[in-house]
């Protein structure tokens, strides 16, 4: 489902790929059994293209990576966290449309 531009993050590379990234990074926390998460996938794909070079967009599968969600107190998916300089600057919980995510990204680029 992910296009080439949507990255895949894991517990193992989170610090390097997200927290230490030079650009803002949007992380989509998702799982296979979460219907609304799957509904968001096309919007995430589209945004990765729209914001190429400005925001890195990627997904973290919570089923396979239990540590990272826990450290951000995530107990509901889908959840989108926008990181800038290693800090969470935006949080979107639940199914939303592409425009809502874009508005959140635009505030930080």
């Amino acid at each position, binding site marked *: 489902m992910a296009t080439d531009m949507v990255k895949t993050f894991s517990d193992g590379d989170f610090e390097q790929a997200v927290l230490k990234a030079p650009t803002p990074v949007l992380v989509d926390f998702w799982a296979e059994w979460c*219907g*609304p*998460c799957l*509904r968001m996938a096309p919007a995430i794909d589209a945004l990765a293209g729209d914001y190429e070079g400005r925001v890195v967009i990627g997904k973290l599968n919570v089923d396979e990576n239990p540590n990272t969600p826990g450290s951000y107190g995530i*107990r509901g998916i889908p959840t989108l966290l926008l990181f800038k300089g290693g800090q969470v600057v935006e949080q979107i919980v639940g199914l939303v449309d592409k425009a809502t995510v874009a508005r959140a990204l635009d505030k930080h680029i």
Partner: protein
Amino acid sequence: MTDTARDVIIIGSGPAGLTAALYAARANLKPLVIEGLEAGGQLMLTTMVENFPGFRDGIMGPALMGEMRAQAERFGAETIQGDVTAVDLSVPPFAVKTADQEFRCRALIISTGASAKLLGLPSERALMGHGVSTCATCDGYFFRDRPIAVAGGGDSALEEAIFLTKFASHVTVVHRRDALRASKIMQDKALANPKISFEWDTEVTDVKDAGKGEVTAVVLWNKKTGATKDLAVDGLFVAIGHTPNTKLFAGQLEMDANGYLVTRNGSKTSRPGVFACGDVQDHVYRQAVTAAGSGCMAAIDTERYLESIGD
């Protein structure tokens, strides 16, 4: 980006919208279904559906919606991803807008359904995704071996509570009356489940602890005794009912005091050529099968309407 006027556009893709699409397609009306953000409707968030006729062993909600969609498409219904942001029903053909496109149609079928109601507490909003949830199938996973609360007393609340016993150490159902609204069979299942207990005549008045950024307890208020207490839980699932998705039509269509579209003589709304089906206009039954039935009615009403105005 204006399209030439279609015969019929259907807003929403739950059982009502997809059944309307099936019948409209078979009547050669070439319906366009604009899926909506929550495509597939409420059944996409359920697991086993056991009360939709025709499936003696039950069927998973998403699978049932997949079948309905494929069936409608088989006969020529076109479905597109997209969320309707505005409609103009003042002069036919009606205008229907999404973020990227604008459509026009001679007839419109509204099947936008209903969305989960929230308690309305600031703490509920603050802790959404951090222990407060409206989707048991999405978030039950995060509460393995933890105690949780479910607010509500209808079928949805009990179904969620029973589902959540797969993960949680204990589920407390908090209901503001002393009797459940749910169907008898759901009540029996829930009452017999050793992991489920009930707080009757009780409302959730606050969720702790927004300062910590996670749910640690819910504050319960017993309406009969006036007593309040904290119930230590790691999560709260809100399943108190649904509110109809009718904001798009404010000022354009007649609604009742609770925001439901008023329909008469089947699926007719207050505007000729505009029909409504499913939960958006039903606060009494709200079942997948009644939604599907009303979707069929809307398609037949639409066909008759289009014939009456000529092509």
